[in-house]
Protein backbone atom coordinates (compact mmCIF):
# COMPACT_ATOMS: atom_id res chain seq x y z
CA UNK A 1 0.00 0.00 0.00
CA UNK A 2 1.12 3.49 -0.74
CA UNK A 3 2.79 5.40 2.03
CA UNK A 4 0.33 8.28 1.73
CA UNK A 5 -2.58 5.93 2.34
CA UNK A 6 -0.92 4.50 5.42
CA UNK A 7 -0.28 8.06 6.60
CA UNK A 8 -3.97 8.87 6.15
CA UNK A 9 -4.93 5.84 8.26
CA UNK A 10 -2.40 6.83 10.91
CA UNK A 11 -3.86 10.30 11.05
CA UNK A 12 -7.36 8.81 11.34
CA UNK A 13 -6.19 6.63 14.24
CA UNK A 14 -4.78 9.69 15.96
CA UNK A 15 -8.07 11.52 15.51
CA UNK A 16 -9.99 8.56 16.87
CA UNK A 17 -7.68 8.40 19.89
CA UNK A 18 -8.55 12.03 20.59
CA UNK A 19 -12.21 11.15 20.25
CA UNK A 20 -11.86 8.18 22.63
CA UNK A 21 -10.15 10.28 25.28
CA UNK A 22 -12.74 13.07 25.02
CA UNK A 23 -15.60 10.59 25.10
CA UNK A 24 -14.27 8.84 28.19
CA UNK A 25 -13.49 12.15 29.91
CA UNK A 26 -17.12 13.12 29.37
CA UNK A 27 -18.61 9.80 30.45
CA UNK A 28 -16.28 9.42 33.45
CA UNK A 29 -16.89 5.71 33.11
CA UNK A 30 -15.42 3.22 30.67
CA UNK A 31 -12.24 1.48 29.60
CA UNK A 32 -9.46 3.73 28.46
CA UNK A 33 -6.41 1.45 28.16
CA UNK A 34 -7.96 -1.29 26.05
CA UNK A 35 -9.72 1.18 23.76
CA UNK A 36 -6.43 2.90 22.96
CA UNK A 37 -4.53 -0.36 22.46
CA UNK A 38 -7.02 -1.67 19.89
CA UNK A 39 -7.77 1.50 17.95
CA UNK A 40 -5.13 1.10 15.23
CA UNK A 41 -6.63 -2.28 14.26
CA UNK A 42 -10.16 -0.87 14.45
CA UNK A 43 -9.07 2.01 12.20
CA UNK A 44 -7.52 -0.32 9.62
CA UNK A 45 -10.70 -2.40 9.55
CA UNK A 46 -13.25 0.42 9.42
CA UNK A 47 -11.33 2.81 7.16
CA UNK A 48 -9.50 0.41 4.88
CA UNK A 49 -10.40 -3.25 4.94
CA UNK A 50 -14.07 -3.70 5.59
CA UNK A 51 -16.83 -3.28 3.03
CA UNK A 52 -19.69 -1.55 4.80
CA UNK A 53 -22.30 1.12 4.26
CA UNK A 54 -23.03 3.61 7.05
CA UNK A 55 -26.24 4.64 5.26
CA UNK A 56 -27.43 1.02 5.32
CA UNK A 57 -25.93 -0.68 8.39
CA UNK A 58 -27.69 -3.97 7.54
CA UNK A 59 -26.49 -4.02 3.90
CA UNK A 60 -26.24 -7.69 3.00
CA UNK A 61 -22.84 -7.43 1.35
CA UNK A 62 -21.14 -5.92 4.39
CA UNK A 63 -18.22 -7.46 6.22
CA UNK A 64 -18.99 -8.19 9.85
CA UNK A 65 -17.10 -6.72 12.80
CA UNK A 66 -17.36 -8.22 16.26
CA UNK A 67 -15.68 -6.58 19.22
CA UNK A 68 -15.45 -9.61 21.46
CA UNK A 69 -13.49 -7.56 23.97
CA UNK A 70 -16.61 -5.47 24.36
CA UNK A 71 -15.19 -3.23 27.06
CA UNK A 72 -13.27 -1.45 24.28
CA UNK A 73 -16.65 -0.27 22.97
CA UNK A 74 -15.49 3.39 22.80
CA UNK A 75 -13.01 2.35 20.08
CA UNK A 76 -15.84 0.95 17.95
CA UNK A 77 -18.22 3.80 18.77
CA UNK A 78 -15.79 6.54 17.66
CA UNK A 79 -15.20 4.68 14.38
CA UNK A 80 -18.94 4.30 13.79
CA UNK A 81 -19.54 7.98 14.63
CA UNK A 82 -16.73 9.07 12.30
CA UNK A 83 -18.44 7.14 9.51
CA UNK A 84 -21.79 8.72 10.30
CA UNK A 85 -23.62 5.65 11.62
CA UNK A 86 -24.91 8.09 14.22
CA UNK A 87 -24.15 11.75 15.12
CA UNK A 88 -20.78 12.44 16.77
CA UNK A 89 -22.59 14.25 19.58
CA UNK A 90 -24.05 10.92 20.68
CA UNK A 91 -20.58 9.95 21.91
CA UNK A 92 -21.02 12.46 24.72
CA UNK A 93 -23.92 10.33 25.98
CA UNK A 94 -21.83 7.17 26.36
CA UNK A 95 -23.06 5.02 29.26
CA UNK A 96 -25.84 7.48 30.18
CA UNK A 97 -29.37 6.35 30.94
CA UNK A 98 -31.36 6.31 27.70
CA UNK A 99 -28.28 6.45 25.44
CA UNK A 100 -27.96 4.04 22.53
CA UNK A 101 -24.27 3.81 23.39
CA UNK A 102 -24.30 1.18 26.11
CA UNK A 103 -21.31 0.35 28.29
CA UNK A 104 -20.71 -2.69 26.10
CA UNK A 105 -21.79 -3.16 22.46
CA UNK A 106 -25.52 -3.85 22.08
CA UNK A 107 -26.83 -4.76 18.63
CA UNK A 108 -30.39 -3.94 19.66
CA UNK A 109 -29.73 -0.23 19.99
CA UNK A 110 -26.55 0.83 18.16
CA UNK A 111 -26.47 1.03 14.35
CA UNK A 112 -23.47 -0.89 13.03
CA UNK A 113 -23.14 -3.24 15.98
CA UNK A 114 -23.74 -6.84 14.88
CA UNK A 115 -24.09 -8.76 18.16
CA UNK A 116 -24.02 -8.17 21.91
CA UNK A 117 -20.60 -8.60 23.47
CA UNK A 118 -18.97 -7.73 26.75
CA UNK A 119 -19.14 -11.02 28.60
CA UNK A 120 -15.69 -12.16 27.54
CA UNK A 121 -15.05 -15.25 25.49
CA UNK A 122 -18.30 -15.31 23.54
CA UNK A 123 -17.54 -13.18 20.48
CA UNK A 124 -15.52 -15.73 18.53
CA UNK A 125 -18.35 -18.28 18.78
CA UNK A 126 -20.76 -15.72 17.35
CA UNK A 127 -18.24 -14.84 14.63
CA UNK A 128 -18.09 -18.55 13.75
CA UNK A 129 -21.86 -18.68 13.48
CA UNK A 130 -21.99 -15.64 11.22
CA UNK A 131 -19.18 -17.09 9.07
CA UNK A 132 -21.07 -20.39 8.74
CA UNK A 133 -24.28 -18.55 7.87
CA UNK A 134 -22.55 -16.41 5.23
CA UNK A 135 -21.02 -19.51 3.71
CA UNK A 136 -24.41 -21.24 3.51
CA UNK A 137 -25.63 -18.24 1.52
CA UNK A 138 -22.48 -18.26 -0.63
CA UNK A 139 -21.85 -14.69 0.52
CA UNK A 140 -18.48 -13.07 -0.08
CA UNK A 141 -18.48 -11.10 3.16
CA UNK A 142 -15.77 -11.65 5.71
CA UNK A 143 -16.00 -11.73 9.49
CA UNK A 144 -13.56 -9.97 11.80
CA UNK A 145 -13.49 -10.60 15.55
CA UNK A 146 -11.21 -8.78 17.98
CA UNK A 147 -10.35 -10.41 21.29
CA UNK A 148 -8.11 -9.36 24.13
CA UNK A 149 -5.21 -11.45 25.38
CA UNK A 150 -6.72 -11.75 28.86
CA UNK A 151 -9.92 -12.90 27.19
CA UNK A 152 -8.10 -15.96 25.87
CA UNK A 153 -8.28 -17.31 29.42
CA UNK A 154 -11.94 -18.10 28.78
CA UNK A 155 -12.35 -21.75 27.79
CA UNK A 156 -15.07 -20.93 25.28
CA UNK A 157 -12.48 -19.16 23.11
CA UNK A 158 -10.75 -22.49 22.58
CA UNK A 159 -13.99 -24.32 21.91
CA UNK A 160 -14.59 -21.72 19.22
CA UNK A 161 -11.00 -21.93 17.94
CA UNK A 162 -11.43 -25.70 17.55
CA UNK A 163 -14.74 -25.28 15.71
CA UNK A 164 -13.52 -22.54 13.35
CA UNK A 165 -10.68 -24.75 12.16
CA UNK A 166 -12.92 -27.84 12.02
CA UNK A 167 -15.34 -26.02 9.73
CA UNK A 168 -12.46 -24.45 7.75
CA UNK A 169 -13.79 -20.93 8.18
CA UNK A 170 -11.46 -19.04 5.86
CA UNK A 171 -13.96 -16.16 5.74
CA UNK A 172 -13.11 -15.53 9.39
CA UNK A 173 -10.21 -13.48 10.71
CA UNK A 174 -9.63 -13.16 14.44
CA UNK A 175 -7.40 -10.45 15.87
CA UNK A 176 -5.90 -10.61 19.34
CA UNK A 177 -5.03 -7.32 21.03
CA UNK A 178 -2.08 -8.47 23.11
CA UNK A 179 -1.61 -5.53 25.46
CA UNK A 180 -0.31 -7.89 28.15
CA UNK A 181 -2.38 -6.36 30.94
CA UNK A 182 -5.66 -7.29 32.55
CA UNK A 183 -7.54 -5.89 35.53
CA UNK A 184 -5.51 -7.65 38.21
CA UNK A 185 -2.17 -7.00 36.54
CA UNK A 186 0.10 -8.63 33.96
CA UNK A 187 -1.60 -11.35 31.95
CA UNK A 188 1.54 -13.43 32.32
CA UNK A 189 1.21 -13.33 36.10
CA UNK A 190 -2.56 -13.54 36.46
CA UNK A 191 -2.87 -16.53 34.12
CA UNK A 192 -0.36 -16.98 31.37
CA UNK A 193 -1.81 -17.40 27.87
CA UNK A 194 1.48 -17.49 25.92
CA UNK A 195 2.39 -18.71 23.39
CA UNK A 196 -0.70 -17.39 21.64
CA UNK A 197 0.18 -17.87 17.97
CA UNK A 198 1.46 -21.41 18.60
CA UNK A 199 -1.75 -22.30 20.42
CA UNK A 200 -3.87 -21.16 17.48
CA UNK A 201 -1.58 -22.99 15.03
CA UNK A 202 -1.97 -26.16 17.09
CA UNK A 203 -5.74 -25.69 16.80
CA UNK A 204 -5.43 -25.56 13.01
CA UNK A 205 -5.33 -21.83 12.34
CA UNK A 206 -3.03 -19.74 10.21
CA UNK A 207 -1.35 -17.30 12.61
CA UNK A 208 0.35 -13.99 11.85
CA UNK A 209 2.28 -12.03 14.45
CA UNK A 210 2.59 -8.27 14.08
CA UNK A 211 3.10 -4.99 15.88
CA UNK A 212 -0.46 -3.89 16.52
CA UNK A 213 0.45 -0.21 16.24
CA UNK A 214 2.29 -0.49 12.91
CA UNK A 215 -0.41 0.54 10.46
CA UNK A 216 1.41 -0.83 7.42
CA UNK A 217 1.84 -4.18 9.18
CA UNK A 218 -1.83 -4.30 10.22
CA UNK A 219 -2.97 -3.58 6.67
CA UNK A 220 -0.57 -6.16 5.23
CA UNK A 221 -1.73 -8.81 7.71
CA UNK A 222 -5.41 -8.16 6.94
CA UNK A 223 -4.68 -8.45 3.22
CA UNK A 224 -2.70 -11.64 3.77
CA UNK A 225 -5.51 -13.18 5.87
CA UNK A 226 -7.86 -12.81 2.93
CA UNK A 227 -5.54 -14.95 0.79
CA UNK A 228 -5.38 -17.86 3.26
CA UNK A 229 -7.80 -20.57 2.15
CA UNK A 230 -9.09 -23.63 3.97
CA UNK A 231 -8.48 -22.35 7.48
CA UNK A 232 -9.21 -19.32 9.64
CA UNK A 233 -6.49 -16.74 10.27
CA UNK A 234 -5.58 -15.10 13.54
CA UNK A 235 -3.57 -11.91 13.72
CA UNK A 236 -1.73 -11.80 17.02
CA UNK A 237 -0.95 -8.14 17.55
CA UNK A 238 1.49 -6.92 20.17
CA UNK A 239 0.11 -3.67 21.56
CA UNK A 240 0.55 -1.23 24.39
CA UNK A 241 -2.33 -0.64 26.76
CA UNK A 242 -3.16 3.07 26.70
CA UNK A 243 -1.09 3.56 23.52
CA UNK A 244 -0.61 7.14 22.43
CA UNK A 245 -1.02 8.76 25.82
CA UNK A 246 2.18 8.37 27.85
CA UNK A 247 0.49 8.71 31.24
CA UNK A 248 -1.84 5.80 30.42
CA UNK A 249 0.63 3.53 28.70
CA UNK A 250 1.31 0.07 30.14
CA UNK A 251 -0.71 0.72 33.27
CA UNK A 252 -3.15 -1.97 34.40
CA UNK A 253 -4.69 0.69 36.65
CA UNK A 254 -6.02 2.43 33.52
CA UNK A 255 -8.04 -0.63 32.49
CA UNK A 256 -11.33 0.72 33.72
CA UNK A 257 -10.40 4.27 34.67
CA UNK A 258 -11.26 7.43 32.74
CA UNK A 259 -9.23 10.64 32.43
CA UNK A 260 -9.88 13.56 34.76
CA UNK A 261 -9.58 17.18 33.54
CA UNK A 262 -5.82 17.36 34.00
CA UNK A 263 -5.26 13.97 32.40
CA UNK A 264 -7.43 14.98 29.46
CA UNK A 265 -5.21 18.00 28.82
CA UNK A 266 -2.07 15.91 29.08
CA UNK A 267 -3.61 13.32 26.76
CA UNK A 268 -4.55 15.91 24.17
CA UNK A 269 -1.02 17.30 24.26
CA UNK A 270 0.34 13.77 23.79
CA UNK A 271 -1.98 13.29 20.85
CA UNK A 272 -0.84 16.49 19.21
CA UNK A 273 -3.82 18.63 20.11
CA UNK A 274 -3.36 21.94 21.78
CA UNK A 275 -6.96 22.57 22.58
CA UNK A 276 -8.73 21.75 25.79
Amino acid at each position, binding site marked *: MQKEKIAVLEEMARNLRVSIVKTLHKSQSGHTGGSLSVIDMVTALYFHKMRHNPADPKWEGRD*RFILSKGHAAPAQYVALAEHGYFPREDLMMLRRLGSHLQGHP*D*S*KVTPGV*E*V*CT*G*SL*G*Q*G*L*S*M*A*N*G*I*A*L*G*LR*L*DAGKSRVYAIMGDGELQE*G*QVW*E*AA*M*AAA*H*YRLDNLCALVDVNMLQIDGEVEKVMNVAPIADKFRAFGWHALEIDGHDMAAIVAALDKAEDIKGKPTVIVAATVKGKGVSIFENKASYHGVTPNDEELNTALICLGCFED
Partner: protein
Amino acid sequence: MSNMKATRDAYGEVLAELGAENKDIVVLDADLSGSTKTAVFRKQFPERFFNMGIAEANMVGTAAGLAAAGKIPFVSTFAIFAAGRAWEQIRQSVAYPKANVKIVPTHGGITVGEDGGSHQSVEDIAIMRAIPNMTVMVPADAVETRKAIRAAAEYKGPVYIRLGRNKVPSVFSDDYYFEIGKGIEVVPGTDMTFVTTGLMTAQAVSAANLLKQEGISARVVHIATIKPLDQDIIVKAAEETGAIVTAEEHSIIGGLGGAVAECLAEKHPTPVKRVGIHDRFGTSGKAEELMKYFGLTPEDLADAAREVLTRK
Protein backbone atom coordinates in the same frame (compact mmCIF):
# COMPACT_ATOMS: atom_id res chain seq x y z
CA MET B 1 -54.75 -41.27 25.99
CA SER B 2 -53.83 -44.40 24.12
CA ASN B 3 -50.96 -43.47 21.81
CA MET B 4 -47.56 -43.48 23.43
CA LYS B 5 -44.76 -41.45 21.87
CA ALA B 6 -41.71 -39.56 23.09
CA THR B 7 -41.73 -35.81 22.57
CA ARG B 8 -38.16 -36.06 21.26
CA ASP B 9 -39.33 -38.39 18.49
CA ALA B 10 -41.97 -35.89 17.44
CA TYR B 11 -39.28 -33.19 17.48
CA GLY B 12 -37.00 -35.13 15.14
CA GLU B 13 -39.83 -35.59 12.66
CA VAL B 14 -41.13 -32.03 12.66
CA LEU B 15 -37.64 -30.58 12.49
CA ALA B 16 -36.96 -32.50 9.28
CA GLU B 17 -40.30 -31.30 7.88
CA LEU B 18 -39.38 -27.71 8.70
CA GLY B 19 -35.99 -28.23 7.09
CA ALA B 20 -37.70 -29.14 3.84
CA GLU B 21 -40.05 -26.17 4.07
CA ASN B 22 -37.57 -23.47 5.04
CA LYS B 23 -33.94 -23.41 3.95
CA ASP B 24 -33.08 -20.96 6.73
CA ILE B 25 -33.60 -23.66 9.37
CA VAL B 26 -30.23 -24.88 10.66
CA VAL B 27 -29.57 -27.33 13.47
CA LEU B 28 -26.75 -27.60 16.00
CA ASP B 29 -26.11 -30.48 18.36
CA ALA B 30 -23.37 -31.37 20.84
CA ASP B 31 -22.63 -35.02 20.09
CA LEU B 32 -26.11 -36.21 21.08
CA SER B 33 -27.94 -36.09 17.75
CA GLY B 34 -29.00 -39.73 18.02
CA SER B 35 -30.55 -39.11 21.43
CA THR B 36 -32.07 -35.70 20.73
CA LYS B 37 -33.35 -36.97 17.34
CA THR B 38 -31.78 -34.11 15.41
CA ALA B 39 -30.09 -36.93 13.50
CA VAL B 40 -33.26 -37.16 11.40
CA PHE B 41 -32.58 -33.61 10.15
CA ARG B 42 -28.84 -34.32 9.86
CA LYS B 43 -29.42 -37.19 7.46
CA GLN B 44 -31.66 -35.13 5.19
CA PHE B 45 -29.85 -31.79 5.35
CA PRO B 46 -26.21 -32.48 6.23
CA GLU B 47 -25.07 -29.06 4.93
CA ARG B 48 -27.38 -27.32 7.41
CA PHE B 49 -26.52 -29.51 10.38
CA PHE B 50 -23.56 -28.59 12.57
CA ASN B 51 -22.21 -31.02 15.10
CA MET B 52 -20.36 -28.79 17.54
CA GLY B 53 -18.82 -31.59 19.58
CA ILE B 54 -19.05 -31.72 23.34
CA ALA B 55 -18.82 -27.94 23.69
CA GLU B 56 -22.18 -26.43 24.57
CA ALA B 57 -21.02 -22.89 25.31
CA ASN B 58 -19.58 -22.51 21.82
CA MET B 59 -22.62 -24.22 20.33
CA VAL B 60 -24.97 -21.61 21.77
CA GLY B 61 -22.71 -18.73 20.71
CA THR B 62 -22.44 -20.18 17.21
CA ALA B 63 -26.22 -20.41 17.04
CA ALA B 64 -26.44 -16.73 18.00
CA GLY B 65 -24.07 -15.93 15.13
CA LEU B 66 -26.10 -17.99 12.68
CA ALA B 67 -29.19 -16.08 13.81
CA ALA B 68 -27.32 -12.80 13.25
CA ALA B 69 -26.70 -14.04 9.69
CA GLY B 70 -30.43 -14.53 9.17
CA LYS B 71 -30.72 -18.24 9.92
CA ILE B 72 -33.18 -19.92 12.30
CA PRO B 73 -31.00 -22.16 14.45
CA PHE B 74 -32.40 -25.02 16.52
CA VAL B 75 -29.98 -26.06 19.26
CA SER B 76 -30.27 -29.42 20.97
CA THR B 77 -28.53 -31.42 23.66
CA PHE B 78 -29.73 -32.70 27.05
CA ALA B 79 -31.59 -30.11 29.14
CA ILE B 80 -28.98 -29.96 31.87
CA PHE B 81 -26.20 -29.14 29.37
CA ALA B 82 -28.25 -26.63 27.38
CA ALA B 83 -29.78 -24.66 30.24
CA GLY B 84 -27.12 -25.42 32.82
CA ARG B 85 -23.78 -25.56 31.06
CA ALA B 86 -24.55 -22.78 28.61
CA TRP B 87 -26.77 -20.56 30.78
CA GLU B 88 -24.66 -17.45 30.50
CA GLN B 89 -24.17 -17.90 26.76
CA ILE B 90 -27.94 -18.16 26.43
CA ARG B 91 -28.32 -15.00 28.49
CA GLN B 92 -25.63 -12.88 26.81
CA SER B 93 -25.44 -14.15 23.25
CA VAL B 94 -29.07 -15.18 22.70
CA ALA B 95 -31.55 -13.50 25.03
CA TYR B 96 -29.87 -10.10 25.48
CA PRO B 97 -29.74 -9.38 21.74
CA LYS B 98 -33.10 -11.16 21.31
CA ALA B 99 -31.47 -13.50 18.81
CA ASN B 100 -33.77 -15.80 16.86
CA VAL B 101 -32.40 -18.98 18.44
CA LYS B 102 -34.52 -21.98 19.42
CA ILE B 103 -33.06 -24.00 22.26
CA VAL B 104 -34.76 -27.39 22.26
CA PRO B 105 -33.20 -29.76 24.76
CA THR B 106 -34.39 -33.28 25.35
CA HIS B 107 -33.97 -35.46 28.45
CA GLY B 108 -35.53 -32.91 30.80
CA GLY B 109 -36.50 -33.96 34.32
CA ILE B 110 -36.07 -37.15 36.29
CA THR B 111 -37.52 -39.52 33.69
CA VAL B 112 -34.05 -39.51 32.13
CA GLY B 113 -33.84 -42.46 34.53
CA GLU B 114 -30.79 -44.66 34.92
CA ASP B 115 -28.19 -41.98 34.07
CA GLY B 116 -28.96 -40.47 37.46
CA GLY B 117 -28.86 -37.07 39.11
CA SER B 118 -25.94 -35.69 37.07
CA HIS B 119 -28.08 -35.90 33.94
CA GLN B 120 -31.51 -35.11 35.34
CA SER B 121 -32.29 -31.44 34.95
CA VAL B 122 -34.69 -30.30 37.67
CA GLU B 123 -33.78 -26.61 37.56
CA ASP B 124 -33.83 -25.67 33.89
CA ILE B 125 -37.33 -24.17 33.76
CA ALA B 126 -36.52 -21.90 36.69
CA ILE B 127 -33.22 -20.61 35.33
CA MET B 128 -34.54 -20.14 31.79
CA ARG B 129 -37.66 -18.39 33.05
CA ALA B 130 -35.56 -15.86 34.93
CA ILE B 131 -33.96 -14.55 31.73
CA PRO B 132 -35.62 -11.52 30.09
CA ASN B 133 -36.80 -12.01 26.46
CA MET B 134 -36.99 -15.79 26.95
CA THR B 135 -40.06 -17.85 26.13
CA VAL B 136 -40.24 -21.20 27.96
CA MET B 137 -42.38 -24.14 26.88
CA VAL B 138 -42.88 -27.73 28.05
CA PRO B 139 -45.20 -29.68 25.73
CA ALA B 140 -47.39 -32.44 27.15
CA ASP B 141 -47.16 -34.92 24.31
CA ALA B 142 -46.01 -35.60 20.78
CA VAL B 143 -48.90 -33.73 19.13
CA GLU B 144 -48.27 -30.59 21.14
CA THR B 145 -44.53 -30.87 20.56
CA ARG B 146 -45.04 -30.74 16.80
CA LYS B 147 -47.20 -27.64 17.16
CA ALA B 148 -44.88 -25.95 19.65
CA ILE B 149 -41.84 -26.49 17.43
CA ARG B 150 -43.68 -25.09 14.43
CA ALA B 151 -44.85 -22.09 16.47
CA ALA B 152 -41.28 -21.53 17.68
CA ALA B 153 -39.99 -21.52 14.10
CA GLU B 154 -42.55 -18.83 13.21
CA TYR B 155 -41.91 -16.74 16.34
CA LYS B 156 -39.06 -14.21 16.14
CA GLY B 157 -36.91 -14.45 19.23
CA PRO B 158 -35.38 -16.78 21.78
CA VAL B 159 -37.34 -19.86 22.80
CA TYR B 160 -36.58 -22.72 25.19
CA ILE B 161 -38.62 -25.88 24.66
CA ARG B 162 -38.00 -28.71 27.10
CA LEU B 163 -38.63 -32.22 25.79
CA GLY B 164 -38.41 -35.64 27.37
CA ARG B 165 -36.71 -38.92 26.81
CA ASN B 166 -39.49 -41.44 27.26
CA LYS B 167 -42.73 -42.29 25.55
CA VAL B 168 -45.64 -40.37 27.04
CA PRO B 169 -49.38 -40.81 26.50
CA SER B 170 -51.08 -38.46 24.10
CA VAL B 171 -53.25 -35.75 25.65
CA PHE B 172 -54.15 -33.83 22.52
CA SER B 173 -55.62 -34.74 19.17
CA ASP B 174 -54.26 -33.45 15.88
CA ASP B 175 -56.90 -30.72 15.58
CA TYR B 176 -55.77 -29.10 18.86
CA TYR B 177 -55.13 -25.38 18.33
CA PHE B 178 -51.82 -24.39 19.90
CA GLU B 179 -50.74 -20.84 20.63
CA ILE B 180 -47.61 -19.68 22.46
CA GLY B 181 -48.62 -18.18 25.81
CA LYS B 182 -52.05 -19.81 26.02
CA GLY B 183 -53.06 -22.44 28.56
CA ILE B 184 -55.88 -24.87 27.90
CA GLU B 185 -58.52 -26.55 30.05
CA VAL B 186 -58.09 -30.26 29.41
CA VAL B 187 -60.63 -31.52 31.97
CA PRO B 188 -63.51 -29.38 33.29
CA GLY B 189 -64.03 -29.28 37.05
CA THR B 190 -65.38 -27.11 39.85
CA ASP B 191 -63.85 -28.15 43.21
CA MET B 192 -60.15 -27.60 42.58
CA THR B 193 -57.71 -27.23 39.66
CA PHE B 194 -54.57 -29.05 38.65
CA VAL B 195 -52.30 -26.63 36.80
CA THR B 196 -49.74 -28.78 35.08
CA THR B 197 -47.05 -28.84 32.42
CA GLY B 198 -45.22 -31.44 30.36
CA LEU B 199 -45.88 -35.08 31.10
CA MET B 200 -47.60 -34.18 34.39
CA THR B 201 -50.72 -33.14 32.50
CA ALA B 202 -51.47 -36.77 31.60
CA GLN B 203 -50.86 -37.70 35.25
CA ALA B 204 -53.32 -35.02 36.35
CA VAL B 205 -55.97 -36.29 33.96
CA SER B 206 -55.64 -39.71 35.63
CA ALA B 207 -55.76 -38.05 39.06
CA ALA B 208 -58.94 -36.20 38.10
CA ASN B 209 -60.52 -39.57 37.25
CA LEU B 210 -59.48 -40.98 40.65
CA LEU B 211 -60.99 -37.98 42.45
CA LYS B 212 -64.20 -38.22 40.44
CA GLN B 213 -64.88 -41.57 42.12
CA GLU B 214 -64.82 -39.74 45.47
CA GLY B 215 -67.16 -37.07 44.19
CA ILE B 216 -64.44 -34.44 43.82
CA SER B 217 -64.66 -32.47 40.60
CA ALA B 218 -61.09 -31.64 39.55
CA ARG B 219 -60.26 -29.32 36.68
CA VAL B 220 -57.04 -29.82 34.71
CA VAL B 221 -55.42 -26.79 33.09
CA HIS B 222 -52.41 -27.53 30.93
CA ILE B 223 -49.77 -24.83 30.72
CA ALA B 224 -47.42 -25.50 27.81
CA THR B 225 -45.95 -21.99 27.95
CA ILE B 226 -44.56 -21.29 31.40
CA LYS B 227 -43.33 -17.92 30.20
CA PRO B 228 -45.13 -15.79 29.22
CA LEU B 229 -47.65 -17.32 31.64
CA ASP B 230 -51.34 -17.38 30.76
CA GLN B 231 -52.38 -15.58 33.93
CA ASP B 232 -56.02 -15.28 32.87
CA ILE B 233 -56.69 -19.01 32.77
CA ILE B 234 -54.97 -19.49 36.14
CA VAL B 235 -56.79 -16.63 37.89
CA LYS B 236 -60.07 -17.89 36.39
CA ALA B 237 -59.39 -21.37 37.78
CA ALA B 238 -58.58 -19.88 41.18
CA GLU B 239 -61.76 -17.80 41.17
CA GLU B 240 -63.97 -20.65 40.05
CA THR B 241 -62.50 -23.61 41.95
CA GLY B 242 -60.75 -21.96 44.91
CA ALA B 243 -57.83 -24.39 45.24
CA ILE B 244 -54.81 -25.09 43.03
CA VAL B 245 -52.35 -27.96 42.76
CA THR B 246 -49.43 -27.36 40.42
CA ALA B 247 -47.45 -30.29 39.04
CA GLU B 248 -44.23 -30.46 37.08
CA GLU B 249 -41.31 -32.80 36.54
CA HIS B 250 -39.03 -30.12 37.95
CA SER B 251 -38.08 -28.51 41.23
CA ILE B 252 -40.95 -26.87 43.06
CA ILE B 253 -38.65 -23.83 43.24
CA GLY B 254 -38.97 -21.39 40.40
CA GLY B 255 -40.71 -23.49 37.77
CA LEU B 256 -44.41 -23.77 37.00
CA GLY B 257 -45.30 -23.96 40.71
CA GLY B 258 -43.27 -20.85 41.38
CA ALA B 259 -44.80 -19.00 38.45
CA VAL B 260 -48.37 -19.91 39.45
CA ALA B 261 -47.73 -19.00 43.10
CA GLU B 262 -46.31 -15.62 42.05
CA CYS B 263 -49.30 -14.97 39.85
CA LEU B 264 -51.93 -15.93 42.43
CA ALA B 265 -50.20 -14.23 45.35
CA GLU B 266 -50.55 -10.93 43.49
CA LYS B 267 -53.77 -11.40 41.57
CA HIS B 268 -56.00 -13.75 43.52
CA PRO B 269 -54.58 -15.30 46.73
CA THR B 270 -55.67 -18.93 46.75
CA PRO B 271 -54.51 -22.11 48.55
CA VAL B 272 -51.77 -23.66 46.39
CA LYS B 273 -49.95 -26.97 46.69
CA ARG B 274 -46.89 -27.49 44.52
CA VAL B 275 -46.13 -31.02 43.35
CA GLY B 276 -42.64 -31.53 41.96
CA ILE B 277 -39.09 -32.29 43.07
CA HIS B 278 -38.56 -30.98 46.60
CA ASP B 279 -35.22 -29.16 46.47
CA ARG B 280 -33.16 -32.28 45.78
CA PHE B 281 -31.22 -33.84 42.96
CA GLY B 282 -32.39 -36.80 40.95
CA THR B 283 -31.08 -40.32 41.28
CA SER B 284 -30.65 -43.47 39.19
CA GLY B 285 -33.59 -45.75 38.61
CA LYS B 286 -36.22 -46.64 36.07
CA ALA B 287 -38.38 -43.72 35.00
CA GLU B 288 -41.58 -45.20 36.40
CA GLU B 289 -39.85 -46.03 39.68
CA LEU B 290 -38.59 -42.45 39.90
CA MET B 291 -42.04 -41.02 39.26
CA LYS B 292 -43.16 -42.92 42.38
CA TYR B 293 -40.01 -42.12 44.34
CA PHE B 294 -40.41 -38.38 43.76
CA GLY B 295 -44.17 -38.39 44.32
CA LEU B 296 -45.32 -37.58 40.79
CA THR B 297 -47.98 -40.30 40.28
CA PRO B 298 -51.74 -39.75 39.86
CA GLU B 299 -52.17 -41.04 43.45
CA ASP B 300 -49.72 -38.39 44.70
CA LEU B 301 -51.62 -35.71 42.79
CA ALA B 302 -54.92 -36.91 44.26
CA ASP B 303 -53.38 -36.72 47.75
CA ALA B 304 -52.22 -33.17 47.03
CA ALA B 305 -55.73 -32.26 45.89
CA ARG B 306 -57.28 -33.62 49.09
CA GLU B 307 -54.75 -31.68 51.14
CA VAL B 308 -55.31 -28.38 49.37
CA LEU B 309 -59.08 -28.81 49.64
CA THR B 310 -58.73 -28.81 53.47
CA ARG B 311 -57.27 -25.29 53.16
CA LYS B 312 -59.98 -23.95 50.91
